């Protein structure tokens, strides 16, 4: 039984559950308020924007690339959407047309990154780093440094703050779920569906696993990779619009350098940065875990100056645990196969 337990902990989800259990034990002792219902809602709301971007970048990482320009894409998308919405007096149709144009631009920018990566076989790290500079620079051309302050009504406000529905939770208080969490859930559902259920998802895993094999089984690898970058761009755009609505301001600083958090979530989520391995569930767990760390640090009022250090150490520990556990579990798996081979 013991061996089975070790192998269970070794598996990816085994580790994640152990990490969560550890945190729950610590919090049960130190600050039980962690278990209050609206603390969960608060964490979900906190990772809404990061979660949408994580889903986007997951597509590019799966095909063996990466997208450092998600932060800048979110910024320019928010700026354009709200600029156009503002010129039409924040009418719903004005806001929607603004969003449409902004997301279209993100599609194009994503496609440009994808083409550069595939046509010249460039490392995605460098291409998207360059795109980050270019897109961030162009935000100023759109906004001239001004900020759009969406009014506290209309669709442009609801996207970031509207309580969609609230679940009565006994004792009179209600757990109200805001729009960003709904958008996150919808985006996660769609991405999970695309990656697990559709042929496009299968193709991405094949391309990430072994691009030659993908080509030989009739997959147009390069076209699909460009598609992945476009999806990453659009989802970054959606995240930007949502963030600007939540903040009540859209401009140069919207989602500045947000790609750092997205990378952290990917890494903690156990997504293989070389491609071909990792799912939406893992990536979202990564985002959730980073959100939980920040939440715990505030609840335990960890001293301001050591917060960055604690976050760094916890992530490093999670990665090291992941590596040793993975090595343990693949070893066990090999023994099982050898036995099965012999028996048959």
């Amino acid at each position, binding site marked *: 039984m013991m061996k089975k337990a070790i192998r269970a902990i070794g598996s990816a989800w085994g580790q994640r559950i152990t990490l969560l259990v550890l945190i729950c034990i610590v919090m049960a002792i130190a600050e039980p308020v962690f278990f209050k219902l*609206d603390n969960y809602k608060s964490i979900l709301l906190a990772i809404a924007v990061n979660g949408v971007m994580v889903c986007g970048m997951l597509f590019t990482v799966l095909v063996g690339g990466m997208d450092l320009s998600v932060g800048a894409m979110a910024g320019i998308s928010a700026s354009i959407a709200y600029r156009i919405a503002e010129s039409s007096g924040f009418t719903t149709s004005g806001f929607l047309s603004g969003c449409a144009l902004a997301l279209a631009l993100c599609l194009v920018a994503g496609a440009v990154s994808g083409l550069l990566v595939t046509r010249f076989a460039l490392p995605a790290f460098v291409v998207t780093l360059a795109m980050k500079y270019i897109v961030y620079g162009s935000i100023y051309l759109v906004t001239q440094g001004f900020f759009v302050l969406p009014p506290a009504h209309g669709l442009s406000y609801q996207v970031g703050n509207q309580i969609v529905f609230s679940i009565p939770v006994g004792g009179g208080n209600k757990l109200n779920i805001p729009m960003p969490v709904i958008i996150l859930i919808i985006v996660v559902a769609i991405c999970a569906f695309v990656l697990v259920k559709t042929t496009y998802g299968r193709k991405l895993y094949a391309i990430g696993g072994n691009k030659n094999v993908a080509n030989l089984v009739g997959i147009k690898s390069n076209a699909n990779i460009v598609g992945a970058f476009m999806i990453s761009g659009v989802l970054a755009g959606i995240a930007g619009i949502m963030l600007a609505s*939540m903040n009540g301001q859209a401009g140069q600083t919207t989602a500045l350098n947000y790609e750092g958090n997205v990378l952290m979530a990917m890494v903690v989520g156990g997504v293989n940065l070389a491609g071909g391995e990792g799912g939406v569930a893992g990536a979202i767990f990564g985002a959730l875990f980073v959100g939980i760390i920040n*939440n715990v640090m505030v609840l335990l009022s960890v001293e301001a100056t050591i917060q*960055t250090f604690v976050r760094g150490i916890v992530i490093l520990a999670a990665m090291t645990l992941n590596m040793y556990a993975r090595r343990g579990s693949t070893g066990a798996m090999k023994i099982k196969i050898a036995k099965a081979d012999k028996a048959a």
Partner: protein
Amino acid sequence: MRRMKIIAMLLVLVMAVGFIASCDKPKETTNTSNNDNTASNNDNSAGAPADPTASSGSSGSTGTGALPGGKNIYEDPIKISVISISTAGIVNRMYQMALNDQAVRYPNVILDYKDAEYDPSKQVTLIEEAITQKYDCIILECMDPVGVNEAIDKAEAAGIPVISTNAAEPFTVHSLHVAGADYSSGWKGGEELVKLAGNEGTAVVLDCPASFKPGARMGTGFEDYITQNTNIRLIEQIPIENWDAAVAQTSMRDVLTKYGPGEITMVYCSSGDIANGAMNAIDAAGRADEGILIWGFMGYPMELEAIRDGRMAGTMFSDTYTQYAALFYIALNHIATGLTSITGGYTATPAIEQPMFPVTKDNVDDVMAFSGWYMTKSMNGK
């Protein structure tokens, strides 16, 4: 083939030497001469700097001799370099508007806005850039009070007046420091909040990112006042990463989770964005009715409107729009008279205390009336 490598190496060296040989020796004092004559730094550079909390309006000893005289500010071409920590934020947008509105009347004045991208080394580079291009004045939003000292000395020595504003005050003597009033705004904010909430209760501080603490001292000012003068308990001090409103909203939500109704009396926010995030969190948690007093900084249009709507208790208002407009003329005055800390024989940096006064529900309407920033409301450039 080997020859090629050697030639390539030689070329690199020749190129480097070529630069030096080909340029003419600059006429005014090169930077070689003044790097050792340590300008008389005010003594508090080592150890904790005591902030000029109350030193209002005390200008250093004005030089007696006649000033060398500068340019004719109406005809001569004038270039002013405005170096800010980052040109991306709302506040910086407001300064540029204020300065541009004044510069309209002086077509011969060129305002050159430079972004230091939160990088202290880049601020030094930009100051040296201004010296090389012989700008007439530098308006500096200084990020690290120590890092820019040498560069400022060079600028002043080159006859370029350096006016530091809105952020940390560089320790070296320079032409003028328009007190960013961050420390005093935090201090006075504490006073006002105590007036509103009485002398007991709890306080939460949503402060600037940890690495900005040396430069942005509003949170420290508030904490100093509360701990030294009141028995209000300081229950939370949270750094808000990147001054981001969304991060402020998340941290405030976590604080609300931790402390039940009535356990939080006041929240001091180090910037308008952070105050905005805190308000959104309180509204979203449905606890707006608890009367948690939120105190902001700098008097953004958003803050003024929130105070008017009662979502916010108040803010320390310094009409930065008029302040920067005035700054434009101060700069022209320095250029016209050739006054710098050296020609003026200063031994300490004159500081203009920014008139700060609290804005609360009762005086918010007339403040809106005369606040340049709110009046123009041209946040969006209309």
